């Protein structure tokens, strides 16, 4: 049976990876058609010279960094607070935010922003995207950091306070350093999710805040463009490295 | 004597150590035989080799005279009672007991199952799931599940270790009488020498993957073949090449008369053990000598000069290894 299982695993891994491998291979094709005509970096140059893609990449990066910073801080503090004592309200809300379909989160935020804009003279833009990303990322951070806290010995904090540390000092000097690998892996997760999100972002982005997934989506809808293969390959490779780094952190 | 199981120079080597090293052993039919030794001595690995969960690196395994080392576990007519019992949690007691018979395609499940349920006093518990049973009940289901298959050999891996200490002595005796009634050969693994001595018809003592001695309980205790066996099966004081057990030793203020061995000593401490008192005495060379004295006997305060003595016939002569 184990031989059949290994054979099956080869097939399953091919299914999971071949589409991305094929995409990557053809991003180096000199032809724009699905016929191999020689190695070329022409589509990478096209992607880099595309002003719209460049601007979108900068936006995505900025949104990713800001959302990661805010969500990681808020989520880590929240995980710690919940570890001290459970709160059914917050836990249930977090869980709900995790399982609500993206499209529902997107339209609900859109409706909310439009409602708020009646009273404030602001518009959709990078800030609304960042807030949206922070919202759906908090649950990821709480999950990852919370998992790390479950293996943390509460006695260490008691020892710190017994030695004269205040509550805050005990958290800052004893608990937080122990949590850092979990916090870092949560931050990577948030960045990846933020960088990749299309469904929610497309609903709450303004005209000046197009992100990379939005541009790729538009190009993919418009018709075949090998520059999309090139930029996709770069994204897969970049995110892949981040994910592997995150897995390392989580195992440590 | 006719043997059910024979091991001929059986070895199991892992990358960095030899878990079982050339063990040769035969288990007499109808006996209750124990493999005993400290943890990591290879006794459990030996059991797993017999069950078929591990493949030997060398040697031969014979069940009723036929080689079995190439057979998978499900084709060997041996059955195992696991240390944690390994009852299937999604099946009731009865379904656990029927499991093996169903795999064999036995047509009449009812009568053998009923017989074994009665034998192990499980009537009324048939529909319980493992998590609804006490430790003792779980153990009896595990026994029933194996015995209903009437194996040539029943393997028991530390069968008493998961039970409460109070229950252990009682179950020990039940296990022995169960074995006598069903007549199936039991091969039992334990790290508890007292358990092995009290239960077994035959004992094999293992240490670091090797067999140290095979014998009946009396031989093992009174005539140990190696210093390891002598120390493992009970407390012992060593004086050079001679060992003497605390319970064979006496203590007195004056040196004894006659054909007895004695040594002058200074009492260092006493330990109350409930049924007796152990007096630790210094023979002058720094070595501690333990003497078992009756609870209601004389009291020997620390610092008192005394004589310890014993009969020469109680001495165990085992030269120190070079």
């Amino acid at each position, binding site marked *: 049976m184990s031989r059949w299982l290994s054979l099956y695993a080869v097939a399953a891994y091919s299914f999971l990876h071949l589409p991305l491998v094929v995409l990557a291979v053809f991003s180096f094709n000199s032809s724009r058609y*699905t016929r191999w005509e020689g190695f070329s970096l022409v589509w990478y140059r096209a992607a880099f010279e595309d002003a719209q893609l460049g601007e979108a990449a900068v936006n995505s990066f900025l949104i990713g960094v800001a959302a990661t910073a805010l969500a990681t801080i808020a989520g880590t503090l929240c995980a710690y607070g919940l570890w001290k004592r459970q709160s059914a309200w917050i836990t249930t809300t977090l869980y709900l935010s995790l399982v609500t379909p993206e499209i529902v*989160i997107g339209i609900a935020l859109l409706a909310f922003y439009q409602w708020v804009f009646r009273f404030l003279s602001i518009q959709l833009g990078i800030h609304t995207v960042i807030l949206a990303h922070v919202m759906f990322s908090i649950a990821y951070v709480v999950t990852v950091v919370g998992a790390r806290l479950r293996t943390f010995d509460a006695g260490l904090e008691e020892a710190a306070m017994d030695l004269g540390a205040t*509550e805050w000092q005990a958290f800052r000097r004893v608990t937080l350093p122990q949590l850092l690998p979990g916090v870092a892996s949560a931050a990577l997760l948030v960045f990846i999710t933020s960088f990749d999100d299309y469904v929610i972002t497309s609903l709450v982005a303004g005209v000046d805040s197009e992100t990379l997934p939005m541009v790729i989506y538009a190009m993919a809808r418009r018709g*075949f463009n090998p520059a999309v293969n090139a930029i996709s390959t770069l994204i897969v490779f970049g995110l892949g490295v981040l994910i592997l780094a995150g897995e390392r952190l989580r195992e440590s | 004597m006719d043997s059910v199981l024979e091991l001929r120079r059986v070895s199991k080597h892992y990358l960095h150590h030899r878990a079982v090293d050339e063990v040769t052993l035969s288990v007499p039919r109808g006996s209750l035989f124990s493999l005993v030794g400290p943890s990591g001595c290879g006794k459990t690995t030996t059991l797993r080799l017999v069950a078929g969960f591990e493949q030997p690196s060398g040697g031969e395994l014979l069940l009723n005279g036929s080689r079995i080392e190439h057979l998978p576990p499900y084709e060997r007519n041996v059955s195992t009672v696991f240390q944690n019992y390994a009852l299937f949690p999604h099946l009731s007691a009865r379904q656990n007991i029927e499991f093996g018979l169903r*795999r064999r395609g036995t047509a009449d499940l009812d009568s053998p199952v009923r017989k074994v349920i009665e034998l192990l006093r499980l009537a009324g518990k048939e529909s319980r799931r493992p998590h609804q049973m006490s430790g003792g009940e779980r153990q009896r289901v595990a026994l029933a*599940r194996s015995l209903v298959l009437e194996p040539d050999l029943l393997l028991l891996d530390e069968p008493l270790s998961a039970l409460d200490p109070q229950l252990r002595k009682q179950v020990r005796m039940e296990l022995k009488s169960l074995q006598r009634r069903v007549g199936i050969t039991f091969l039992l693994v334990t790290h508890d020498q007292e358990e092995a001595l009290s239960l077994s018809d035959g004992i094999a003592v293992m240490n670091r993957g090797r067999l140290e001695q095979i014998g009946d309980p009396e031989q093992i205790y009174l005539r140990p073949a190696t210093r390891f066996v002598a120390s493992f099966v009970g407390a012992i004081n060593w004086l050079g090449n001679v060992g003497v057990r605390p319970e064979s030793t006496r203590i007195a203020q004056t040196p004894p008369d006659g054909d007895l061995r004695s040594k002058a000593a200074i009492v260092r401490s006493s330990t109350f053990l409930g049924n007796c008192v152990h007096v630790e005495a210094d023979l002058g060379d720094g070595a501690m000598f333990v003497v078992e004295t009756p609870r209601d006997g004389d009291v020997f305060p620390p610092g008192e000069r005394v004589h310890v003595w014993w009969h020469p016939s109680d001495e165990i002569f085992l030269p120190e290894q070079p």
Partner: protein
Amino acid sequence: MTRLRAWFLAPSALLLAALFLIPLGIICAYSLMTRGPYGGVSGPWTWDNYARLPDPLYLLILWRSLLYAAISTALCVLMGFPLALFLARSGHRRNLYLALVIVPFWTSFLVRTYAWMFLLRETGLINSVLVWLGILEQPFEMLYTPFAVILGLVYGYLPFMVLPIYATLERLDRSLIEAAADLGARPLESLFRIVIPLSRPGILAGSVLVFISCLGAYLTPDLLGGGKTIMIGNLVQNQFTSARDWPFGSALSLLLMLVVMLLLMPVLRRRQEGLL
């Protein structure tokens, strides 16, 4: 540690209240209001939006969403269980094999969906290869079909099935499998009598995760179904963008939420096993 705790919880609680609970509340309110003349939302309060849901057109889309989600979930169980079993038995290289499942899962969902567009197009690689091999005389359109949508859903959410099943298989006491073999069960019997029944919690958790993800899918039917095989997620999005009927879109999204919540009930009871 009771004084500081409130401060630790406050940022997340505020963010979740403002950006999740209040927006959901607004959707609830909108679903009971009327579409304004220019696409806005206005009074009076009404149940009309819910009364419109049983329209055959919308029922068809709802039915299609449930059907595609069910087919995709079934395929994910069939494909995911053996892979999880392989992972659980893969020995010292387990972390590598696990990473090989997780990495494509987290790399851009959009790019992974796009990769299938690239493969399935009429002039895409699969058609080219099939024509070149002589299996097909002419390329045919595989993209924008129900097949493409279900393929995309299975591809997108397979790891949601594999990881929970793997987690239960990994916790499975090895001695139970040994006991089954010891009692005479052959490997396949032991698989069906012991391993599969005992991994039911993982299969259930994975199935619910995959099913609700498929049910709420937007990107996959949009890109691989090309507007021909729209699912409920697309219908919701459509009401908020081109159709500009926010009240009806709100009612639809609450219906979607309701179905998701009902499906989650059995899993919520097992929450102690962790969120994923």
